[in-house]
């Protein structure tokens, strides 16, 4: 999978800008650690968030995980299909398993995030 235009957070979210919108999801490493995802709770469309705000919950059999906004702005889309079938986040974390799309208030916030190789280093350190 080509992740060269994805950026990553230390809390294992990814963000990719598609046609000006910041699409957000959780990383493959995160879904693997969480394992069977049983529920996803997403915010209301139109909600304004700051980078670092909790925007979603991902539930597994054993635990509930908070998902944080990698960038600030307005939530303009939420992915209802992962609410219907949370296992999509396990099977396609970087694709169909995206969670929300944010209209960024400050697109330069993306520059503070990690690129793929920096994120891989972070995972290696954690393990």
């Amino acid at each position, binding site marked *: 999978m080509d992740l060269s235009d994805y950026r990553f957070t230390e809390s294992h979210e990814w963000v990719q800008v598609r046609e000006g919108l910041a699409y957000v999801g959780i990383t493959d490493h995160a879904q693997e650690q969480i*394992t*069977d995802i*049983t*529920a*996803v*709770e997403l915010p209301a469309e139109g909600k304004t968030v700051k980078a670092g705000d909790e925007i979603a*919950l991902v*539930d*597994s*059999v*054993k*635990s*509930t995980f908070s998902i944080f906004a990698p960038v600030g702005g307005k939530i303009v889309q939420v992915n209802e299909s992962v609410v219907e079938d949370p296992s999509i986040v396990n099977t396609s974390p970087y694709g169909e398993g995206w969670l929300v799309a944010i209209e960024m208030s400050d697109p330069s916030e993306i520059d503070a995030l990690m690129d793929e190789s920096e994120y891989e280093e972070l995972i290696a350190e954690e393990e």
Partner: protein
Amino acid sequence: MQDGQTVRLSPLDGMHASSGARMVEFAGWRLPVMFTSIIQEHRAVRERAGLFDISHMAQIIVEGAGTQGWLQSLITNDIRLAPPGRGIYTFLTNERGGVVDDGFVFHLPDGRFLLVFNASREPAVLEHLRSRLPGDVSVVARLDRGALAVQGPASAAIVQAVVPGAENLPRRGIAAAAIAGAPVWLSRTGYTGEDGFEMFFHSGHAESVWRALTASGESAGMALCGLGARDTLRMEMGYPLYGHELDETTSPFEIGYGWAVKLDKGVEFPGSEALRREKEAGPLRILAGLLPEGRITPREGCRVLCGGEVMGRVTSGTFSPSLERPICLALIASDARGEFEVDVREKQVPAQQTALPFYRPARGD
């Protein structure tokens, strides 16, 4: 982990590493939490069978002339319900009637007793026993043992193939058997609600017993199962787990297990007076099954409210693979009446009380 202690390894630790198990530390032991997926392992046990490493369980041998009478003066259940070749579920209680631990007392066919209790409570159980030990009884915690469980509707066929006659072992029965040449104590017990067997053996035989069972279970679709599925299976049954539903301040009556407290057996035991008073007055708390609305599972510690007042707490919460929804066990005030709500991450979610178990396996008893 407590200071200075090293983690204890199952005799199957190397086997688990090569099976790709995800390991966790539990009660001082390193054990598999899952092999493939908690949900898949759970469903395998409900529909077919699963194999669990339960080598962490404390195995304590009690023997000597006075054993039976002494155990009768310690356990809440009635030891006479366990003639040779049978086991009983029981509690050990403190003077206040609080639970020191829960577990199985097996009366082995050779006359000795095998106590199988929680790994996390092994030191407390040993202290409880040894501080009351008479001269004609010996208590030995066996550290050189392993244990496995085969659970699920196909378990009788799977075990029968390696131990001819196993399918005739009655519920709670225990017998000497051999698996792959290794001597084992084979019991018809478990912690999943399904038909099943547990086997206890010398740790040196663990790998050969494991191999024999995995080979036998293969055609039946038996899954390797970790502690994750063990926990979701027991929660669906409303079975308590020490440290969650049980502690030294919780009584058997509060969790709805009065059937394992025999106050009329003619022998007093630690806490019997307190438990008699509690039985008469009725317990102040009860263990309730709750079905919370919404998709996010309320976890242990979440407050349970009734009429806006805190009436208790969630003791265990999980996504139930059988019901495909969140379920919770909660200790709540027994006089709480009305609609319940559970505090989940700063939201109050309505929760409907339901009779336990949450899930009723198909088997007859």
